[in-house]
């Protein structure tokens, strides 16, 4: 229980509305995994590091991480290898464009929720253009005329509203995340406009191909990192934290110092 309390006190004001759901899920998981021992308070540097890493569920996370590793080795990696070796690069690019285009309505929704008119306009333009003259998205025509795509998810939207990430979690199958982004993923799945227009089988297929394609792009890099790292789990955690920070920062950089007008309202509500 102690570490459950720690997780919530550590996550700040951010995740109030998620608490009941998450608490139930965590209680079950904690019974299986246990939590990390925080350093003693007389070592301030160690405490600072512990807080920065923000991984109170480390023992459990490690178990899930290795479960994902086994799954990856048995299934995803072989599929990705076959995909890379068997499908010619131009076709892979087209498939990627098609799948990205399917994700644009969700990005548009999040652009709007972030009250980012410029980006919303860009996404709308890209979607209309690529879905029509881009032949259902198989050709990224918009990028060629100077409107490259971007990706926004609900985790990023929550961040733009001022919610902190909460502790690091490794999700089964989906991989590294944090409490805020994991909640965001659930919302993304529930509200994805593409989801209402397509069958479950189609969505499942699209999700699988998308995962295989992404995995195929980093085959050699991941193999090397696995091989060379002393602690693959810790390296992956660090990479994830930095990468996600960059995604959030990118979002801010393209439209500098423009926190969402909703931020104060949302914070107030949660309190």
């Amino acid at each position, binding site marked *: 229980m102690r570490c459950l309390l720690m997780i919530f006190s550590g996550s700040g004001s951010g995740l109030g509305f998620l608490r009941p759901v998450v608490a139930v899920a965590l209680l079950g998981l904690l019974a299986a995994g246990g939590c990390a021992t925080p350093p003693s308070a007389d070592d301030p540097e160690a405490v600072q590091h512990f807080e920065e*890493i923000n991984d109170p569920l480390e023992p459990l996370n490690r178990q899930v991480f290795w479960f994902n590793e086994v799954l990856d080795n048995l299934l995803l990696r072989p599929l990705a290898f076959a995909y890379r070796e068997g499908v010619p690069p131009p076709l892979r690019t087209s498939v990627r464009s098609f799948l990205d285009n399917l994700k644009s309505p969700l990005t548009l929704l999040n652009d709007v929720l972030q009250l980012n008119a410029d980006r919303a306009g860009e996404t709308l333009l890209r979607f209309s253009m690529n879905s029509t003259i881009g032949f259902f998205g198989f050709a990224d025509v918009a990028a060629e005329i100077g409107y490259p795509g971007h990706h926004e998810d609900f985790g990023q939207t929550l961040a733009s509203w001022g919610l902190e990430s909460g502790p690091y979690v490794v999700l089964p199958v989906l991989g*590294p*995340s944090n409490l805020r982004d994991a909640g965001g993923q659930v919302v993304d799945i529930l509200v994805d406009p593409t989801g209402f227009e397509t069958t479950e089988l189609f969505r499942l297929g699209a999700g699988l191909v998308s995962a295989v394609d*992404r995995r195929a792009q980093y085959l050699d890099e991941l193999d090397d990192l696995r091989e*060379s790292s002393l*602690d693959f789990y*810790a390296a992956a955690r660090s990479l994830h934290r930095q990468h*996600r920070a960059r995604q959030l920062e990118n979002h801010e950089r393209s439209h500098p110092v423009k926190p969402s007008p909703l931020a104060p309202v949302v914070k107030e509500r949660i309190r």
Partner: protein
Amino acid sequence: MSFLRTTVFCALVAAYSLSAAAAGAPGSAEDFIRDLAATALVKLGEKGTDADDHNRRFQRLLTNRFDIPRISKFVMGRYWRRATDDERREFVSLFEKFTTKAYANRFRDIGRAKLNVLRSREVASGQEVVHSQIDFDERPPIKVDWLVRSGPSGGHKITDVVIEGVSMRITFRDEFASVIRQSRGRVAGLLAALRKKTGD
């Protein structure tokens, strides 16, 4: 695995970063990075070199262009102060071998990538960030930032490589801290792990 793809990819493309060259370059930090890329291409892109030779060349570039002692101190973080002089010396030497082993392989097909310096800015006295982009034929370009420190005599040394927002030295620092923590805070535990990994 989705988050991993980009980040890890970055980490390994960092290999590019580690491709250092022989001569200390005079002039600006931007020129230094340009020269590094050109030298790396010549030294590492050569066809028909065997693995040992390739690794030797890579290590030479690494030690000449990177400030290994300074990076070592950073990645050890707070444990640097706790380490004895002997431990520090051994760490610097093992860290160099470790990075060579981890990255040398990545540069075997360096000829298929092209580095373009975009711009640079001073971040502290004597320290500049050089922003660059690596272009590939088959995959989207990657943004790589180089933290370059200029010495009193005008030479330059790299102290960090940041690939798509992922800093090499921070990643190493976090990983090594985890290893040390698992050996109950003993630096000797990290040294043992490094020795094992580098085959020492």
